[in-house]
């Protein structure tokens, strides 16, 4: 490990807005711009003083493919601040932080704006392959006669059968499973019941509601749309979430026979989250008051059909490296892609067999106390704008540690395609640089 410390100076995110069967009020870059400008105006430095901007995004729209650069320019960073976009599916936002850390550690950058964004409600509908071929031939048609001929070969049913981009994105391209089906695999493997999943989900909502009421989401900055509507809070959090209500929902991924429902899965959501990362020199130069430091990070790979156990595979090497037990870490954020998946992670750490065979440990790592994990709710309540979530959990972990007066935390996330990412952070008390 390099010893150059990397500080998190500040951070902010948008409210997470649930997708409701139509494109939401904000494009992905709008979300990142509104959160970013609210964050930047409270800094002692200007946007142009940043060394670079790194933005994670799993599904940038066709007109903002390098969305990081689009956002940096819109934020007023000026022409000279380089900006790029990173993609590691559900961990794109965490990847942005990790890339910023790498550049700070090797001296390339001192001050970096890093985060993640996705506007899943804007995911496109695509023409299917038959239609794409038809358009290609149409463009080659020269004469009127040829063109008319092309129209006679047009089948409306093809035109009306678009490929749902979102569904493609949530399907593993190698093993062909929907993400929810990989969660069903974990439920089967560790014998996690529907009841356990739903209980976990109700708790996620309850914790998010409590955290909101206690003012523990200080990282949220409001959004305003062009019609003057203000969005202050995550709109997927349900104070009325109950076992009875969740029990009514049908299994979505393995229909009829499965256990994973929309109610015990994360929500399809639009949102953005940012952190400002700084080197020691930048902290001194601008007299910054960091929230904390990121002291370690890890990526791991595993069977795509078991992708939900990614946090186990990424966090365990950090614990070993730092010689920490599960309970030595004051607070944990494990992204809640699915209740079955988080419960699967806990079960894996408790399983002698899994820890021996898959992690190469002597035996089970132990159990992680519920009160240390996702204390202010998770993606099941708050939502999972894929690219933003990795940044959100690191940021919220720092806020939660400071609120609890605690020091050490790990944020971990599972990644579609069979990967996991984790970061170890240390909180710093307010007013101490």
């Amino acid at each position, binding site marked *: 490990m390099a010893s150059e410390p990397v500080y998190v100076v500040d951070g902010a995110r948008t409210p997470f807005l649930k997708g409701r069967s139509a494109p939401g009020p904000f494009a992905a870059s709008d979300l990142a711009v509104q959160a970013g400008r609210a964050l930047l105006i409270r800094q*002692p430095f200007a946007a142009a003083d940043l060394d670079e901007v790194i933005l994670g995004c799993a599904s940038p729209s066709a007109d903002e493919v390098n969305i990081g650069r689009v956002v940096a320019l819109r934020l007023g960073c000026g022409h000279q601040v380089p900006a790029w976009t990173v993609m590691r599916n559900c961990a794109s936002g965490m990847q942005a932080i990790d890339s910023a850390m790498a550049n700070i550690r090797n001296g390339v950058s001192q001050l970096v704006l890093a985060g993640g964004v996705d506007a899943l409600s804007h995911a496109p509908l695509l023409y299917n392959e038959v239609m794409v071929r038809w358009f290609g031939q149409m463009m080659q048609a020269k004469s009127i006669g040829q063109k008319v001929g092309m129209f006679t070969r047009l089948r409306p049913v093809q035109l009306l059968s678009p490929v749902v981009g979102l569904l493609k994105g949530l399907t593993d391209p190698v093993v062909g499973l929907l993400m929810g089906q990989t969660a069903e695999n974990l439920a089967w493997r560790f014998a996690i019941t529907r009841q356990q999943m739903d209980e976990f989900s109700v708790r996620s909502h309850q914790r998010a509601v409590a955290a909101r009421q206690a003012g523990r989401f200080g990282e949220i900055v*409001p959004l*305003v749309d062009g*019609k003057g509507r203000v969005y202050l809070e995550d709109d997927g959090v349900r104070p009325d979430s109950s076992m009875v209500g969740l029990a009514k929902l049908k299994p979505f991924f393995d229909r009829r026979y499965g256990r994973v429902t929309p109610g015990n899965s994360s929500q399809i959501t639009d949102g953005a989250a940012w952190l400002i990362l700084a080197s020691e020199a930048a902290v001194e130069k601008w007299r910054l008051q960091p929230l904390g430091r990121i002291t370690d990070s890890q990526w791991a790979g595993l069977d795509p059909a078991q992708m939900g156990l990614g946090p186990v595979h990424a966090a365990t090497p950090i614990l070993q490296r730092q010689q920490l037990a599960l309970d030595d870490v004051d607070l944990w954020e494990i992204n809640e892609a699915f209740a079955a998946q988080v419960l699967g992670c806990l079960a894996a750490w408790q399983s002698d067999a899994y820890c021996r065979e898959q992690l190469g440990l002597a035996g089970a790592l132990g159990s992680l106390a519920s009160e240390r994990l996702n204390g202010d709710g998770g993606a099941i309540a708050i939502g999972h704008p894929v690219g933003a979530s990795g940044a959100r959990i690191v940021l919220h972990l720092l806020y939660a540690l400071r609120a609890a007066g605690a020091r050490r935390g790990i944020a971990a996330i599972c990644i579609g395609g069979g990967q996991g990412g984790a970061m170890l952070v240390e909180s710093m008390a307010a007013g101490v640089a």
Partner: protein
Amino acid sequence: MKLLTENDYQGKVMNPETHSYRHWRLEVDAQGLAWATLDKAGESTNSLSSAVMEELARLLDEFDRHPPKGLIFRSGKAAGFITGADIQEFTQLDTPAKGIELVARGWQLFNRLAALRYPTLALVRGHCLGGGLELALACRYLLVVDEPSTRMGLPEVMLGIVPGWGGMLRLPERIGPQAALDMMLTGKTIDAKKAKRLGLADDCVPPRVMDGAAALLVLAGQRRRRPPLGQRLLNGPLKSVVASGARKQVARRARREHYPAPYAIIDIWAHHQGNALAAPQLIDSIVRSPTARNLVRVFFLQERLKSFGKASTFTAGSVHVVGAGVMGGDIAAWCALRGLTVTLQDQGMERIAPALQRAYAAWGQRIRDARELRRVMDRLIPDPEGHGASRADVVIEAIHENLDAKHALLAGLEARMRPDAVLASNTSSLRIEDLRSVLARPERLVGIHFFNPVAKMPLVEVVAADGTDAETVQRATAFVRQIDRLPLPVKSAPGFLVNAVLGPYMLEAMRAVDEGITPATVDEAMLAFGMPMGPIELVDMVGLDVALAAGRSLAGSGAEPPRCLLERFNAGHLGRKSGRGFYDYAGGKAAKGPAAAVPAGLAERLVRPLLARTQQLVDEGVVADADLADAGVIFGTGFAPFTGGPINYLRSQHA
């Protein structure tokens, strides 16, 4: 590396006779194309002075002897193509004969230009107005460069004159009479894309290909643009139909006795083939009427206001506005439109959001390019916690008019602001002297007083009290220019200039209502006088509560407020904002009902207090001189511009 200059690129050959021109550069390139570049000596913009026109005539003489393959006109100025005729020369038109001579000079020269046998082209980049557009219209081809600064129009009517150098003939010929009359009668300008769409321009190109495009187009051999058949019929046998429609439209905005020029434009187009020389009596009436003289005067007053602030090199990059109400919100939105980064503070996002929504709606109508609109809105940043104050170059306070609240705010702002930033208040009724008492450096507070609606009212009063730091006033003035408003320096005094002169005028109007004259009749009297809005409707717009409070603070508590005002105020009718005041606003507009016959002398009576107060403020030194008072009252209230302003009007009455 040495960059190629344009001359290298086109391989031009200097013409031996070029040295004889002061304002034109003449070059003939390898293809035999002549490039005539207007670069008026000693000026930053091109205008068609008599010297420039005389040289153009000689230039054409030279080409008569050696005709080029084609002739391209362009500008050597970064600022634009040609702003129009030299307006300074208009001030010397004291006799009708001189007026006719001026018209004849351009009419004949541009007719000659239009009749040339070799092809001609105007390459228009930047503003191309008045005589400049008439020159371009006389060319066979017109090529415009697609840049935001490219604006084309015939704004003569705004100076009370007519586009007599062929504009009234060739613009209708080129784009049809409906669009042409619309441009000539309103004086509004159009951008490059619209010029192409209307057929005014043959093509619209980016600057990177403009020279090549000009060379290609001038030799393309295509015919001169003309509008579709329908428009050609309207410009021929059906002229009288269009003319009578246009007269009706003009009558709704401007009365013939106040503004003869738009009526003359219609007549000259409809009855004299656009040739003003064929209607000498119309030129005569325009030159004799005081309107043109006064409007030209107003033009120069505006130029004078624009010159303020040039003493300072201050350029703001960011502005922090506190108070997201109608004024604060609109000031913030305007600054964002003008390219500044703006933080807008108020108590909570819910209070800021309506200002953002108004900005989005207003600029959405104004800006066609979605990306440009997005850039503007990205610069307008809601800032409920007021972080922006610590980095802003200019901080403007625009909260409600409460001294204690403003004291707390100003003291807090001063503590956080950069020491070199401008601290300003948009107050209209509180004294700078009272506001600044809480500051560690009281000399830094300056008034920057906008008018409602900000986007429509060009004047901004820059208020200095005794002891206000002169450099700060300069910076504030430069800032007002930077956001394209007209700064008027005034001394701290109740109501400054504009509100101080409106007060007694509105009061007198309400006294007339107390005497039994209906509000609609009072308003009609002043509309007939030439005001853009009647005084009673103005009270409704200002708000009856505000008018009552202002009346008390301006006239002292001893004076009795008008009965009609008090009654309505007590009944809760506060004006437009409450849906009812003197008029009902249920339909969005004032429901005035018919006006009775205006009693003789009513307008003179109502305007007299305004005139007297203006003179008084000049005498007291609240505004530096009478000309600035005229400028302030015209641009701050819309006071009938054809009168040349209140003091000018007063003098003309006594003359």
